[in-house]
């Protein structure tokens, strides 16, 4: 039994180790977020937090609930596949409060050339013009209606 003589210091060391380990797990349980590990090695609640970010673009489906008249015109033309907010910009605020948030009137001289100014890098089948030669400074909506850009459609709105 002489081997277990004077083991007091070992017991004290073991106790300190046990207490330290316990403290570690208590602190860990307190500090690690509850949802950590819910789906993987990350905070599961982050998904909900990222999803809670407010939207700026309302989506064209919302526009269609009120502006079906314009939609009918647009559907018949070559801009059928262009979503409203592609030109009109983000309008989620307008969809929430159509009365007080009114979208700005657009300037076709700036707007149309964004897509239709001739550029060698654009796909060949995409309709392009050299705006300076094409209209000699006239605004595009002098002749073209942006919702149905074909010229013969003018007058139908």
């Amino acid at each position: 039994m002489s081997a277990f003589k004077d083991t007091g210091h070992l017991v004290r060391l073991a106790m300190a180790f046990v207490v330290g380990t316990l403290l570690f797990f208590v602190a860990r349980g307190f500090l690690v977020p509850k949802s950590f590990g819910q789906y993987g090695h990350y905070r599961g609640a982050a998904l909900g937090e990222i999803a809670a970010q407010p939207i700026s673009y309302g989506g064209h489906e919302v526009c269609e609930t009120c502006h079906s008249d314009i939609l009918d015109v647009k559907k018949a033309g070559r801009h059928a596949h262009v979503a409203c907010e592609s030109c009109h910009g983000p309008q989620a605020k307008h969809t929430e409060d159509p009365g007080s948030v009114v979208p700005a009137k657009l300037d076709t001289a700036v707007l149309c050339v964004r897509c239709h100014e001739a550029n060698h890098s654009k796909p060949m089948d995409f309709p392009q013009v050299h705006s300076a030669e094409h209209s000699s400074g006239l605004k595009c909506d002098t002749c073209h209606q942006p919702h149905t850009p074909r010229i013969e459609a003018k007058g139908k709105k």
Partner: protein
Amino acid sequence: MNVSRRKLLVLLPAAAVAWEHVLAGTPENSPNYKETEHWWGMLLDITKCIGCGSCVRACQLENHVPDGYFRTWVERYVVRDWGFEHISVDSPEGGKNGFPAVTGEMGKSFFVPKMCNQCADSPCTQVCPVGATFVSPDGVVLVDKKYCLGCRYCIQACPYGCRFLNPDTNTAEKCSLCYHRITKGLTTACCESCPTGARQLADLKNPADPVHEFLKTHSVQVLKPHLATGAKAFYNGLDGSVR
């Protein structure tokens, strides 16, 4: 600060409740959305991209991306003759305001919209030391702003250069595939604003999504396939010169 023992004992439970709230996080915002039913990707059609920069502007407005930083951007490639080794690529302001016409000898030229490839086996999430960036159960690579240390490992790890350090928050930032929109049944801001349909959000787990038909019938490629990142940004009409 002078706090009496009595005051401290009163304050402690309140602090505990507040900390509980921080740990629990914000509750799920879209109750009808099930992560396990989706697997998101994106279809980018180079043959349709006109380099108008609508996607770049929309992304900036939707996600409050600081000026000079991009979650998505458009590159213009110019390949003269057959020289794949002598390409020139430019992206003024990330293509936000379109591209000035190139003068002189042109050769082949086209636009390539770039964004996070939403890799299924993403190198960026693997290097994060704290679990602040991850692939969500629906296949979107996201950043947990509250957990990010700003160590920039992920920015170095992304082979596509899709990440940056937000100078305002000092946390890593990247395309979230508009996670706040797609979980509400909307498409991403870039897809919503693309006038030619060059970008299309794709749900690879939804059999009704037209992306499946498109992938079956077209020669589609991902960027840097040799890296086996499991990229889910599928490019149609991708030229061999694109890096």
